[in-house]
């Protein structure tokens, strides 16, 4: 017989970071209406405040100072409140705060300043946080849309520019198409297992494999389509076509946030679906999960394509777009490593570590491009950073740090990320793809060092516009990259609590 649950059964306390962000974003949406047009700095400060409060709660929870909930989920299992959630929340909130800092003056000088920008950013961050906390495929889908739809609007924020509108339309159409695949995959998984909760899917998968029913092929097909839908979000190889166009056309401050947040959300969902939902999905005659071979193949292709095409790029934004594709490939090695039993915990930790390192680095690199860019959106070619070291030594030094970190040079956060990812790959016996990862990393050094060369050893104007919020943002990102590189135990401590609930 049906009994009415009570409000405390929802366990809202466990969702505190996400709830605070949701409430703050809604309140900001209404408050922004009363902020006069010239004073939008108030909205930006309020957005930072909301993000800061949520970040503090997430950090306290991550450090086990505050225990949100008893480890069981909230909302009857739709939301899982564990260490993985806290880690992903911290990464997303840091990215969003850096995104707000980078955006304010950029919006002013390009004439795009509207309060809704910050609200959309907050909602998108909420979506990414919820993807990390998902305990159910329904949550993954809704959170994916919550992450993506504000990004579609933000990509088209420069409403007088054709390139921006075009990138928004392309992103929207391809994103909606991929969402269709994702939902179809979810429907098939639901049909094969009879439930959408990850715990239930894991249990039903064991039963299916034990009974050797033909339904396991439906499950396989569903998992493949979910992989396709999420692979679009993280720009994995057959689904990467939108990345260069959207990164080039969208306003740079949007790309700074979006390049990291969409990946964090996408990878968080991938880890949840594959490691929490389908970890023991081993078909007969194989030793690892059925999806592992597909994922490492995609990883190999992604790394090769991203790095090879980036070599030929002259526009900084497109260069970073292809580099972003390549980095998705490196993280996919760790995702593939989750398929081997016993390695899954280590691989999930590697994903989180890489994403944290990548967040500081990538937002910083795009922030430097924001500084170099002209008001009308041009001036972002690699030629335009010539001689930057003479005019703006600190800016050039920060960009050098970001480029070295992206290349994976030791003593930077990027190296730590790659170390953990390759370690997980080797632990899972995925030797070919790890070797490809190392080789393509070496190739990538060429185009990252080329940027440094142009800044330091070429003659040029080196003009850049840096307002103090942007300077703060770049400094935090650069210092973060260096600190995480010098003290890698910070990263591994952050990820230490991540452990799979089922299987593994």
């Amino acid at each position, binding site marked *: 017989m049906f009994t009415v649950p009570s409000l405390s059964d929802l366990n809202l306390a466990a969702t505190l970071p996400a709830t605070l962000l949701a409430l703050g974003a809604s309140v900001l949406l209404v408050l922004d209406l009363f902020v006069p047009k010239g004073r939008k700095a108030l909205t930006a400060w309020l957005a930072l405040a909301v993000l800061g409060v949520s970040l503090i709660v997430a950090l306290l929870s991550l450090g086990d100072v505050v225990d949100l909930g008893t480890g069981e989920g909230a909302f009857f299992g739709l939301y899982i409140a564990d260490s993985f959630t806290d880690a992903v929340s911290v990464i997303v909130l840091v990215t969003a705060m850096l995104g707000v800092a980078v955006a304010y003056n950029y919006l002013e000088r390009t004439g795009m300043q509207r309060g809704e920008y910050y609200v959309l950013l907050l909602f998108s961050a909420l979506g990414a946080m919820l993807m990390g906390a998902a305990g159910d495929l329904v949550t993954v*889908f809704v959170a994916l849309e919550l992450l993506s739809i504000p990004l*579609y609007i933000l990509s088209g924020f420069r*409403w007088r520019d054709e390139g921006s*509108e*075009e990138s928004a339309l392309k992103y929207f159409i391809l994103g909606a198409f991929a969402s269709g695949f994702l939902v179809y995959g979810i*429907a*098939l998984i639901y*049909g094969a297992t009879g*439930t959408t909760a990850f715990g239930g899917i894991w249990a039903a998968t064991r039963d299916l494999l034990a009974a050797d029913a033909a339904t396991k092929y439906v499950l396989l097909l569903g998992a493949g389509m979910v992989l396709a839908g999420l692979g679009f979000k993280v720009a994995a190889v057959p689904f990467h076509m939108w990345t260069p166009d959207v990164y080039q056309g969208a306003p740079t401050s949007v790309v700074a946030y979006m390049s990291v947040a969409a990946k964090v959300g996408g990878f968080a969902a991938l880890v949840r679906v594959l490691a929490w939902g389908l970890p023991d999905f081993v078909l007969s005659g194989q030793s690892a999960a059925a999806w592992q071979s597909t994922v490492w193949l995609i990883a190999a292709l992604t790394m090769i394509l991203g790095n090879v095409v980036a070599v030929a790029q002259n526009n900084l934004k497109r260069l970073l777009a292809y580099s972003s594709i390549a980095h998705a490939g490196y993280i996919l090695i760790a995702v593939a490593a989750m398929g081997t039993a016993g390695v899954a915990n280590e691989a999930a930790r590697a994903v989180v570590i890489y994403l944290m390192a990548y967040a500081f680095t990538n937002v910083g690199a795009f922030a430097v491009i924001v500084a170099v860019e002209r008001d009308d959106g041009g001036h972002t070619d690699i030629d335009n950073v010539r001689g930057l070291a003479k005019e703006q030594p600190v800016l050039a030094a920060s960009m050098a740090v970001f480029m070295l970190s992206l290349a994976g040079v030791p003593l930077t956060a990027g190296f730590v990320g790659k170390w953990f990812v390759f370690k997980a790959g080797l632990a899972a016996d995925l030797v070919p793809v790890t070797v490809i990862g190392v080789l393509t990393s070496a190739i990538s050094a060429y185009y990252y060092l080329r940027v440094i060369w142009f800044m330091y050893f070429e003659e040029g104007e080196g003009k850049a516009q840096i307002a103090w919020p942007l300077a703060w943002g770049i400094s935090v990102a650069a210092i973060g990259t260096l600190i995480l590189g010098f003290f890698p135990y910070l990263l591994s401590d952050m990820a230490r609590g991540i452990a799979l609930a089922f299987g593994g």
Partner: protein
Amino acid sequence: MIPLWMYLVVAAGLFVIGMFGVLSRRNAIAILMGIELMLNAVNVNLVAFWRYQTPTKLSGQAFAAFVFAVAAAEAAVGLALIIGIYRRKRSVIADDVNLLKW
């Protein structure tokens, strides 16, 4: 009872028709119609699975309602973006939106 596989075939057929629409149409609004068709095909799939596999639990129906809501929101945003492009170019032919290339 009509067998389950018939519903799945219909849903798959709708999905593929929608996919064909997205991939082959030039008009941006027609592409959006294809996307809506894909999402509705998923709904048919979900409800059929719910009815035949676990008719006592409600999760299939609830998820179908979620997909409706999300599809509507997505369509609203997409149409707004298309209107933005239309104001600039006076056309909604997606092929003409090609400033950003390789």
